[in-house]
């Protein structure tokens, strides 16, 4: 028995000493799933180039905000911009990292990428549970040439606190008053219909698995998983396809002001060819965490220099050069570089 006890003790001490080594080169962050594909790709390249580990866990924008406010991570990520007053209250910095578009995706047999046309009214109707079937008269009148099935629509939304949902509902509430009154906007709202997936990942997974379903995801998820995306009617009244150019057009209209900690939305922008549902995704830092802030900022400095190609490959829009400079100035002004 004594032997067993001493072995027990030795294993304990050994693992104890071993396990507390090697903590230095890790940046821990969590938040939005919207930029997860590009962050994880950047982190992979950054680790190769510098040896520093950038651990990003995709748990949703609500989670990113909660965890940085609770100071359980080094940085939080959110596509739902935090208002300057709230930042001040929780002692946070905020800056944009990359821009992307939210696209409706469907799973209807026989319908290919970019064939189905939707407008604000039909999208609202579907997510309010008012349009229940794919062969609804409103959908047919928008898509006279398509063969839409006589099947119920399985609506998929996000179950978690999501910036993608914030962008999506901000758009729907902006273009359709009944949605604004019945549901409202926010990171997680009370959906009248459908099933909820966890993260962009979960929504993409459910749409992929369920026939006759519709969901909304960041475009990289649609592309990587070969989900069928739709066209949308924008503010100028044109039907547009989601792609790098239409997201870029939306990004151009963005009014990012470093004095307001870059708080801005990119929804329903007036450009002729701009995609109506787009947004920037933001990084949140705790003001007093000086050391880890420098590490995080170093990562994004590296990304601003070397990450544009990777972002474009995944159909995210890198920040325009002028905005990058504004962000750099913001870092400098706040002494985190």
């Amino acid at each position, binding site marked *: 028995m004594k032997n067993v006890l001493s072995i027990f003790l030795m294993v304990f001490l050994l693992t104890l000493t071993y396990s507390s080594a090697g903590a230095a080169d890790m940046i821990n962050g969590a938040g939005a799933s919207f930029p997860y594909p590009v962050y994880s790709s950047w982190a992979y390249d950054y680790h190769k180039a510098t040896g520093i580990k950038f651990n990003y866990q995709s748990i949703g924008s*609500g989670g990113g905000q909660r965890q940085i406010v609770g100071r359980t991570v080094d940085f939080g990520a959110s596509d739902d911009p935090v208002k300057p007053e709230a930042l001040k209250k929780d002692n946070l910095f905020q800056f944009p990292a990359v821009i992307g578009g939210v696209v409706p995706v469907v799973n209807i047999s026989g319908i290919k990428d970019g064939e189905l046309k939707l407008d604000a009214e039909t999208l609202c109707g579907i997510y309010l549970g008012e349009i229940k079937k794919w062969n609804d008269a409103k959908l047919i009148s928008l898509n006279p040439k398509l063969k839409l099935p006589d099947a119920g629509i399985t609506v998929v939304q996000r179950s978690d*606190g999501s910036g993608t949902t914030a962008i999506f509902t901000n758009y729907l509430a902006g273009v359709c008053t009944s949605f604004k009154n019945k549901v*409202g906007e926010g990171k*997680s*709202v*009370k959906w009248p219909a459908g099933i*909820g997936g966890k993260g962009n990942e979960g929504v993409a997974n459910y749409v992929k698995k369920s*026939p006759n379903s519709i969901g909304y995801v960041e475009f990289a998820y649609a592309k990587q998983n070969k989900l069928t995306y739709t066209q949308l009617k924008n503010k100028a009244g044109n039907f547009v396809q989601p792609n790098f150019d239409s997201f870029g057009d939306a990004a151009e209209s963005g009014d990012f002001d470093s004095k307001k900690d870059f708080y801005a939305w990119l929804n329903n922008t007036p450009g002729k060819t701009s995609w109506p549902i787009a947004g920037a995704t933001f990084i949140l830092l705790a003001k007093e965490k000086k050391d880890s802030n420098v590490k995080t900022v170093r990562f994004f400095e590296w990304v601003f220099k070397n990450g544009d190609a990777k972002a474009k490959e995944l159909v995210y829009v890198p920040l325009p050069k002028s905005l990058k400079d504004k962000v750099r100035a913001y870092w400098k002004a706040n002494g985190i570089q």
Partner: protein
Amino acid sequence: MAGACPCHSIFLIAERYETLVIQKKNPIDLLFSVITAGASFMVILLVIGIFAILLKESSLSIGKFGFIKFIVTNEWNPVTELFGAAASIYGTMVTTAIALIIAIPIAIGIAVFVTEIATDFLKGPIGAAIELLAAIPSIIYGMWGLFTVAPIMTKYIEPALQKSLGLVPLIGMLFQGTPMGIDLLTASVILSIMIIPFTASISRDAFNLTPAVVKESAYAVGATQWEVVRDVVLPYSKMGVFGGIVLSLGRALGETMAVAFVLGNNHQITSSLFSAAATITVTLANEFTEADKDIYLSSLFHLALVLFMMSFIVLAAAKFLLFKAERKINR
């Protein structure tokens, strides 16, 4: 000193106690007894600690919504910051109830088969299979549910149910809407498969305790096997079976992973089993790390508290009933 103990009275507590009192004079022994006592009081400390911490963390929500009102309010709206647990509690109760309805007959059937019907050759493997089924991690059930069971439900079982039972008045209410496979019914089915082994193995043990003499005298007067089971074995072992069912009930109430994959996370109370829902556990798993406002997080702690109390009360009540029944038998 130990020699003072009269050695034939093995199970008399009083005399043993006497031994112990003498023993406690040894300082190392005293130390050892204090250490072991401390370790066992850890359990009491944990129960009180969990309750106290959950109560403290949910105080914000209890203060704003009220403990009881929170339970009966059907509202889960992070936008307006109004929270109520009714939908989650409803989901927990419905999945648990359906899982038990499916699992109990099957589990008892298995126990009957293993104890009364199977030859010795079959007893071993089936018993082992049941034990293994109980050991599979719940996340495996969840994954299997999402990738394998949900598509089968969508394609075959749910449309079939809709076409048959769905047309019956009243019961038909349960089978409305588009069959999606990610819903209450699928979650309940997975849950029932998960709890079958718990009920089955405890029922089997209880059946085995029925004295052979009693069974044989029933056979001697010409009873069939089924009559022996129904009129002799089941009444004799009903408390044991009840214990098994309660254990499964406890498991089903608190299971997270097996249902998280296939429930669809929607805070709504609907009559149809074909709609997405939320249980307390799934709500916690999905939203706990992501609740952004303090009141939101506090409400989640409040949910955890409700779940803790639910399972604690159910199990404690069952323990109490079993205890009382035991005393009755012993008298």
